């Protein structure tokens, strides 16, 4: 809390952010998927990252959640340096991440999917003696209602529709009440109606947490975003409100114009 953020930029020193990404670089066999990237996410901010395929959006999320190791640079969250931490530790600090393809436990019921994501009993012994208390059940029901699966608790995960699976995975993350929630294309493959419901859901759940959403669908981005970051070739091309970004000639050139 007390340490001042590294003064690489004038603005970051003045303000306290939830997430600091500074000088982040990762190269795969010489190819720099992320190239000296700086990104600051405010507390309670919903940030949308857009960019053409291969811009490094998913790699950025992989780096933040520890799936990929950075070649250089730093990622700080709640005064913790994340770049050297193992994945489960990063999650325990409060970073939740949803994968691009729905990643749920197909053989388990919706209830079990959510219950397993409850953030207690995370050690081997803890899990062995984990009790399904009223508190856990309440939390599962609350989250299930939030994601619109309140009456589907007994349904097997694999039998849900694509959209419902996406919601379930968001619900599994909500069980952990993360302070930073990262969603990778949450509405990919959803129907128009499902997209609307998802937009509402995202607006509701971003109330007490920071969120990073990667999305391609411009209409959807306009619906949810206050601030948009455009990535291109591992770097940040533009950042600002949706309107400002939309009219940025550089952005139009690499992305929106095509």
């Amino acid at each position, binding site marked *: 809390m007390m340490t001042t953020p590294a003064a690489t930029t004038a603005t970051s020193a003045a303000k306290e952010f939830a997430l600091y990404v500074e000088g982040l670089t990762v190269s795969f066999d010489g190819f720099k998927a992320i190239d000296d990237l700086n990104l600051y996410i405010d507390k309670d901010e919903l940030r949308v990252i857009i960019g053409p395929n291969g811009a490094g959006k998913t790699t950025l999320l992989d780096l933040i959640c520890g799936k990929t190791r950075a070649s250089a640079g730093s990622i700080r969250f709640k005064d913790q340096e994340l770049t050297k931490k193992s*994945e*489960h530790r990063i999650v325990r600090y409060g970073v939740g991440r949803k994968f691009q393809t729905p*990643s749920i436990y197909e053989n*388990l019921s919706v209830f*079990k999917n959510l219950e397993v994501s409850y953030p207690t009993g995370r050690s081997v012994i803890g899990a062995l003696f984990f009790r399904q208390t009223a508190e856990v059940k309440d939390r599962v029901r609350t989250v299930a209602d939030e994601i619109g699966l309140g009456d589907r608790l007994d349904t097997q995960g694999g039998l849900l529709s694509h959209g419902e699976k996406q919601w379930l995975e968001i619900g599994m993350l909500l069980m952990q009440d993360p302070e930073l929630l990262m969603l990778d294309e949450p509405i990919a493959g959803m129907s128009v109606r499902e997209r609307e419901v998802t937009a509402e859901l995202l607006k509701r759940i971003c109330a007490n947490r920071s969120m990073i959403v990667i999305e391609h669908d411009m209409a959807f981005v306009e619906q949810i975003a206050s601030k948009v970051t455009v990535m291109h070739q591992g770097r940040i091309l533009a950042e600002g409100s949706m309107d400002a970004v939309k009219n940025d000639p550089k952005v139009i050139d690499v992305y929106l114009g095509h």
Partner: protein
Amino acid sequence: MNRLQTLVRRPGAASLLILAALLLVVFPLTLDIFRLNLVGKYLTYAFVALGLVMLWGHAGILSLGQGVFFGLGGYMMAMFLKLEASDPVSTKIQSTPGIPDFMDWNQLTELPFWWEPFRSLPLALIAVVAVPTLLAFVIGYAMFKRRVGGVYFAIITQAVALILTVLIIGQQGYTGGVNGITDLKTMAGWDIRSDSAKMTLYFVCAGLLLAGVVGCRWIQVSKLGTLLLAMRDKEDRVRFSGYDVAFFKVFAFCVAAALSAVGGALFTLQVGFMSPSFVGIVPSIEMVIFAAVGGRMSLVGAIYGTLLVNFGKTYFSESFPDLWLFLMAALFIGVTMAFPNGLAGLVDSHLKPWWRRREAAAARRSEGSAGGSTATSPGRSTARQDPMTTRPAAGAEPQLPAAQLPIDVTGQRA
């Protein structure tokens, strides 16, 4: 009465009761002591199969080296029994009396220091479980922390099985070599070769096996059990939900190792010797076949699978000794291709729906108060998830199995 009914209706409880009745009542009453001892020997393999259900079926980790732990458990027990059988009086014709005969033949003049703890029965019994579990922990930690899995893990476990066999055969002065440790007589003065001892050991073996089933079931219904299933399905999702996946795999591997070791120790006690032929690659793979035939998702099924394959082995290898290995391989390939969930899978997909239909029909006939009782029974089975069958809502929606089948199959291909 009602309480008893709910207890019996718990998933798995009825099948456990039937198994217990078979092992503890039917077999002892119908088989002579020679055959019963033989069943007892099979049951020691069932411990390994039980461990494989947890490790392979539930955690999705295929180990082709469970013979290592079976063998280690067996050898630890054999070491104790051998020391007791090698008292100075009965070994007085040796050049060094008081040490096991094979050591004397190999010109050893004193007992190696690491044999010393096996003079004590409690220490030996602790070692039976502790040493294999520790080895499993070390191998598991080294592999799973580095995210070695799938077929690579299977190959490494095979290598370990091979290494241990070579080591045992090569160090015959310390281990008895290819003959193993033989001529075991008594345990703390109790003659294990007598018929009454064989009977007692059979019941100990069957009792421990049933306790093992209950213990494994307890793990399965815990959050840890759910996590194992979840890991098999989507490992990354579990990891990114804040769990250190490696430790859960290590745990499953250790449980499987400990069970195998207990089986090995009971094997030594009932069969009266231990040799490297129960450690290597072939017995390890045979044990995987037992679990596969019975159903790798079903604890009880794995035990039936073990019994069935071994009865088959005894019968066929008596009649067609040359064909047995081919038959066994064909059985394995056939089962994995046609019934990936083994016998237990067949029971789940055919016998249980038939029974449910019959029950429902009976309930319909006796309308009256039927509204209450029939509605609750499928409801209950829906609410309580049964990871053993992995077909949760089957009770409530009888039309579903067809739709669920592909999921089952893909989910279980390890």
